[in-house]
């Protein structure tokens, strides 16, 4: 509809390297294919059999499993780009997507980085610098300091002024690290010391600032899109309050509490934030919303996000196509007035985790995969039957999205699809979503960032086994028709290399921290 095909062919890239793995690499490869662009994949030792390698046009090995030696390694990634003559690099999310030095290294190497400039990233990467710039741009943000706390005395003064409870946060931080909630003045000094040392340990920067703590906020973020000619639009908000330990698990668009007027106000402010940062390409402005629906700038994510599909479904736009076209120099093919929001979309992040064992990562071989499809169902997946989920990376397997004409229909379709979804051989968090989607508060749109941790504290409802007799009959039939050879004898379905597993204990946590993937 908006595609001027001839012009696109003249300016478009011929070859793009995807500096990522898993479901997002598959997503970007698909966009390349749809645009007639040759895709180049990279893979580490443990990803040779990964789905993204099979779907790409070219693929190159870049090193051992450890991200620092492969997916985070500038020299290796740029080396492959040069060798394959890739003209541009799409960084996906996590890994190098918000690494200003890498964005600059691409510029220096004459390769187009599909995303914002290094300068925009740097401005938004430091939370205190972001706040300072937002102050200048007249953007509402949570009262507090825009600079790091200089002394416990100054901290006390600020806390008195904004009022308790206050949140201490690491300027260079993310993912919930270096954060401390302080309710009483007596606790401030020790909380400050421990936040500063955790910030130093996790991010190499002890700078901590103070914000008024909004009690039970909702996390609502606004998708923006800007071309390299100064045009910036907002594409609607996403409600991301359903989080477990600060990691998003369910996202939806539009938010159940945002009406068109609030959307317009938040959207215009998000555009102002992006413009103040000189932003180009896709980005997301995060807000905290209090129970009175006042919203405050929290931070900006200078990349495409995991949950982008819900925005794509309600706007009818392909964000990855647009990212590529923007990077190729095209102007946005629409104005703010052209953007329409239609229907409702809800996404579940399917992780290889055991909900009955505190969400312990569950690597291993997927022995059986029955994946849902049908009306209003979108599935962005990096897994397949027979694949062994590696230990070394964040265990996001797939995103399941339900779309409908309204929220109720989206919920019904998603529930139906979750009932069709079966992943055998490893544990997944699918049962968690069945539980959330049945919850009356979720149906009512009544939740905030403390919702899921609260829900999980209530005992898991017993799933009644009414079909023991059916199972008994099935067991006999399987024995007759499909006898198990060597099943459960300790050798069948061996879950990968034992030696590699020795590192497993630290692998997941390390990798997730380094990638800062979630959220």
């Amino acid at each position, binding site marked *: 509809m908006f595609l001027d095909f001839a012009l696109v062919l003249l300016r478009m890239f011929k070859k793009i390297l995807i500096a990522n793995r898993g479901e997002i690499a598959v997503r970007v490869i698909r966009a390349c294919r749809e645009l007639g662009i040759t895709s180049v994949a990279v893979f580490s030792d443990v990803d040779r059999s990964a789905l993204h390698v099979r779907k790409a046009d070219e693929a190159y090995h870049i090193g051992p499993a450890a991200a620092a030696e492969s997916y985070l390694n500038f020299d290796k990634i740029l080396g492959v780009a040069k060798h394959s003559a890739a003209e541009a690099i799409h960084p996906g999310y996590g890994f190098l997507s918000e690494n200003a030095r890498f964005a600059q290294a691409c510029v220096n190497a004459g390769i187009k980085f599909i995303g914002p400039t290094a300068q925009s990233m740097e401005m938004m990467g430091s939370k205190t610098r972001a706040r300072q710039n937002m102050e200048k741009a007249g953007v509402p943000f949570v009262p507090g300091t825009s600079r790091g706390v200089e002394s416990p005395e100054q901290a006390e003064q600020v806390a008195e002024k904004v009022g308790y409870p206050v949140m201490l946060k690491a300027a260079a931080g993310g993912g919930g690290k270096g954060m401390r909630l302080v309710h009483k003045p007596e606790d401030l000094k020790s909380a400050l010391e421990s936040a500063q040392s955790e910030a130093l340990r996790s991010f190499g920067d002890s700078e901590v600032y103070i914000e008024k703590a909004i009690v039970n906020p909702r996390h609502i973020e606004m998708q923006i899109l800007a071309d390299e000619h100064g045009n910036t639009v907002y594409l609607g908000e996403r409600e991301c309050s359903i989080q477990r330990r600060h990691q998003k698990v369910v996202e939806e668009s539009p938010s159940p509490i945002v009406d068109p007027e609030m959307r317009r106000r938040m959207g215009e402010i998000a555009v102002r934030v992006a413009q103040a940062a000189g932003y180009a390409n896709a980005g997301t402005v995060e807000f905290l919303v209090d129970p009175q629906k006042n919203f405050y700038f929290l931070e900006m994510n200078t990349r495409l996000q995991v949950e982008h599909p819900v925005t794509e479904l309600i706007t009818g736009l392909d964000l990855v196509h647009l990212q590529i076209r923007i990077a190729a120099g095209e102007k946005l093919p629409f104005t703010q007035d052209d953007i329409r929001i239609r229907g409702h979309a809800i996404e579940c992040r399917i992780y290889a985790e055991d909900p009955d064992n505190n969400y312990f990562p569950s690597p291993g071989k997927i022995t059986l995969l029955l994946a849902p499809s049908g009306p209003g169902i979108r599935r962005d997946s990096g897994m397949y039957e027979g694949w062994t989920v590696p230990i070394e990376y964040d265990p996001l397997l797939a995103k399941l999205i339900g779309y409908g004409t309204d929220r109720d229909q989206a919920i019904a379709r998603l529930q139906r699809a979750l009932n069709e979804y079966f992943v055998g051989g490893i544990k997944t968090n699918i049962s968690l979503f069945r539980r959330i989607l049945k919850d009356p508060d979720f149906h009512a749109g009544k939740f905030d960032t403390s919702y899921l941790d609260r829900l999980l504290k209530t005992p898991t409802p017993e799933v009644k086994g009414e079909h023991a007799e059916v199972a008994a*009959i*099935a067991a006999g039939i*399987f024995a007759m028709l499909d006898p198990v050879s060597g099943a459960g004898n300790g050798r069948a379905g061996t879950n990968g290399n034992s030696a590699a597993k020795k590192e497993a204990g630290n692998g997941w946590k390390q990798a997730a921290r380094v990638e800062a993937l979630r959220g």
Partner: protein
Amino acid sequence: MIYDVAIDGTNHRLELERSEKIWRCRLNGRDVQMDAVLTRPDVLSILIEGRAYEIKRERTAVDLHYWVGPVRYSAEVRDPRSLRGRKGTGNDDAGPKKLIAPMPGKVVRLLVAEKEEVEAGQGILVVEAMKMQNEIKSPKKGTVQKIVVMEGASVNPTDVLAIIA
């Protein structure tokens, strides 16, 4: 064929016969009108008196389960005629079962001793990994034939931890 099937510890007696494409099924003394088709390895379509069920069989290195809808059942199938005289090597359904480490970690506690009688689902030992403790349970009712590891031992997936006879 006659089978003794234990579902989550409860025993059922099953008689199954198929001639041409017609099934005959008798469960715990009751005739059941049933039809079944294996749609692909590990996935069964069963029709019981008109109700349709999709049954998934899930095999991991450690155990075997059947899923009816979202509910998982553990099952042991015994062909009673061949039970006698069987030594049971490896993990034959009626023979000794090896308890396998499902994850890398360290054995922090033994919960039972050799020669002790245990129930299906009873905790045998505790493995710790990533600061979390995981109780490894017995897959069957029986006797602890051998505990292979000691407290403090490091284990990897597919390592044998114990044998329940």
